[in-house]
């Protein structure tokens, strides 16, 4: 039978399919951070159970860590407690933790690939929806809830319902000014935030082949914003090249054995998908979200839509309330929207490539008066690499703050946040009400678009720079 990559991974991880019960799937890798794990450890302890395979776990601290003055004690007592609890839990259970002081620290979905911890064909879980990021390696990676975190720790398996398969085919080539982020946003704009519900998306086509591993991570990262369970890209030479030599990558004879397995993973040429969506990469303009849902997104050369332009009543109402929250009038040109804050970072766009592109745009500019711009590397390794290339100096000379790694303003749990009414250009993944601070207004963009907006004080069409 012809199989999709998802079906191949599913079949090879099926432990048991008992009558009347959800199929049990074996889990190869379990990623952890300080926010969604403490109650799972608490549950495990209360029921007298143990972590089944400590080697399958890699943990970091990212959500509430400060991105400056790290040598000082954490001011927020609750954040402090979470960080301490994480350290205790990892120590008590013998888990590999990259704590705040570790040179390996950073946002979980940035750190994990850096160490080659996820390989093609794996089943990977984490109590975090952006686990989908690791689909870039051809691994089935998805977010789980805290009781599932406990379940995986105790059993190394997870009861799962099989998803439907969707092929998102991006043909042609991207323009120089559009990026993986713009593809991700354009897809969500097209299918909506519920468009992928019940599906695992496989991204394919020449534009996807052309993406770097970083770009593929950005793309898969936002599969969750399209409502999908996970996103996948078939492994290829770029994937193998990226993995080779990394800490947890197979070595020697194991490498050849692994490679043979990985090469068997891509979907069979005439495998059937439940749904196919096609986009032309050449038509994807740099995107800017204008509302409070990632599907409320449009090309930078367009205008903010008017509620009347939606025939669907739900969408019309959603547009109305989004415009009120965002303080935007219909038909405003996107390039006329002024901003107060710029954030480059997160597990969507906090990798070295993102800072290279942003620095290229920021070079020789100055942050516009009244605008605060922060660059928050996704990990210490990204930070080091950027500094080795002199990118930090470019940002600092342009008036940016150059920070330590963490989730930071992606979800504003660590004190980096917007004040009520402030508007940001942000490279993160969610523009929900209050995501970056109560009353804060978020516009999702690519790193290049964010850097250009910082200098201009409003959005600019980078194709005209």
């Amino acid at each position: 039978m012809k199989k999709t990559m998802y079906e191949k991974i599913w079949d090879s991880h099926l432990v048991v399919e008992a009558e009347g019960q959800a199929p049990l799937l074996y889990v190869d890798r379990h990623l952890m951070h300080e926010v969604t794990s403490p109650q799972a450890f608490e549950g495990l302890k209360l029921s007298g159970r143990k972590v089944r395979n400590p080697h399958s776990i890699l943990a970091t601290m990212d959500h509430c860590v400060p991105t400056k003055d790290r040598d000082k004690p954490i001011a927020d007592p609750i954040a402090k407690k979470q960080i301490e609890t994480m350290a205790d839990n990892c120590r008590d259970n013998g888990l590999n933790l990259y704590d705040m002081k570790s040179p390996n620290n950073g946002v979980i979905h940035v750190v994990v690939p850096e160490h080659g911890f996820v390989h093609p064909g794996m089943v990977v879980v984490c109590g975090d929806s952006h686990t989908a990021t690791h689909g870039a390696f051809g691994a089935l990676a998805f977010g789980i809830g805290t009781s599932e975190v406990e379940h995986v720790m105790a059993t190394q398996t997870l009861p799962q319902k099989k998803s439907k398969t969707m092929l998102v085919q991006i043909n042609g080539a991207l323009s120089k000014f559009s990026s993986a982020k713009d593809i991700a946003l354009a897809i969500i704009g097209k299918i909506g935030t519920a468009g992928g519900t019940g599906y695992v998306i496989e991204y394919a086509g020449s534009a996807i082949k052309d993406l770097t591993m970083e770009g593929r991570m950005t793309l898969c990262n936002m599969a969750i914003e399209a409502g999908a369970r996970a996103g996948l890209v078939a492994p290829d030479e770029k994937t193998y090249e990226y993995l080779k030599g990394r800490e947890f990558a197979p070595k020697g004879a194991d490498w050849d054995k692994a490679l043979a397995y990985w090469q068997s993973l891509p979907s069979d040429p005439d495998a059937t998908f439940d749904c196919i969506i096609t986009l032309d990469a050449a038509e994807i303009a740099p995107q800017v979200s204008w509302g409070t849902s990632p599907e409320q997104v449009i090309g930078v050369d367009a205008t903010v839509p008017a509620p009347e332009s939606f025939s669907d009543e739900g969408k019309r109402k959603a547009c109305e309330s989004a415009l009120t929250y965002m303080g935007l009038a219909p038909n405003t040109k996107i390039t006329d929207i002024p901003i107060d804050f710029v954030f480059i970072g997160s597990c969507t766009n906090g990798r070295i490539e993102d800072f290279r592109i942003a620095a290229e745009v920021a070079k020789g500019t100055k942050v516009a008066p009244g605008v605060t711009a922060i660059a928050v590397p996704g990990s210490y390794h990204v930070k080091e690499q950027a500094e080795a290339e002199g990118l930090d100096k470019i940002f600092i000379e342009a008036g940016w703050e150059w920070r330590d790694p963490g989730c930071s303003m992606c979800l504003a749990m660590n004190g980096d946040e917007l004040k009520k009414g402030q508007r940001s250009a942000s490279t993160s993944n969610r523009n929900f009400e209050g995501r970056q601070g109560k009353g804060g207004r978020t516009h999702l963009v690519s790193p290049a678009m964010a850097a250009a907006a910082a200098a201009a004080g409003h959005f600019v069409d980078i194709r005209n720079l």
Partner: protein
Amino acid sequence: MEPYNKHESIAALMNRSNVDTDQIIPKQFLKKVERSGFGAHLFHDWRFNDDGSDNAEFELNKPIFNGAKVLVVGDNFGCGSSREHAPWAIADYGFNTIISTSYADIFYNNCFKNGILPIVVSKEQLDTLMAEISANEGVSFVIDLAEQKVTTPGGNGFTFDIDPFRKGNLLNGLDDIGLTLLHADKIDQYEQGHKQSYPWLWA
């Protein structure tokens, strides 16, 4: 987990779509390391004014919805972040049943692990239920999971579909981990094979 029994409860109405988990439990409350007490912060940003007083405009603050166990809401409930704090907050507040046309995947799964029954209805059914509540605020619905049936005084009752496995777990208040460990031998067996096929994962 408490077994889910047949019950008659006030149905509270929240006519909003795409309610995301950031709204259900804003992130400033995620830093707690315990599992309980999140109900006090459910819908915090909508429920309270900036000075911490109750926002009288917010639907669930209507005294008539006090003690409601059933929450009737618009499409795509629970979208956004996978935080399980959202179902914890909902359960801790006192809801054990949600009625909507659709839910985000992760949220839907998490409900069952926390003793919450998420019922899926058609758009028309939802509209009728919402109309019944609007016309008669404080109305109680009877939820019978065993029979997969909801009864309303306005005669808008209906039967609903649910995965039999999940239904059984809710009815019996069964812990998922215990259920899985019934297959411990199968897991051991799988793991042996896995070690042989993919030795590099065990290095």
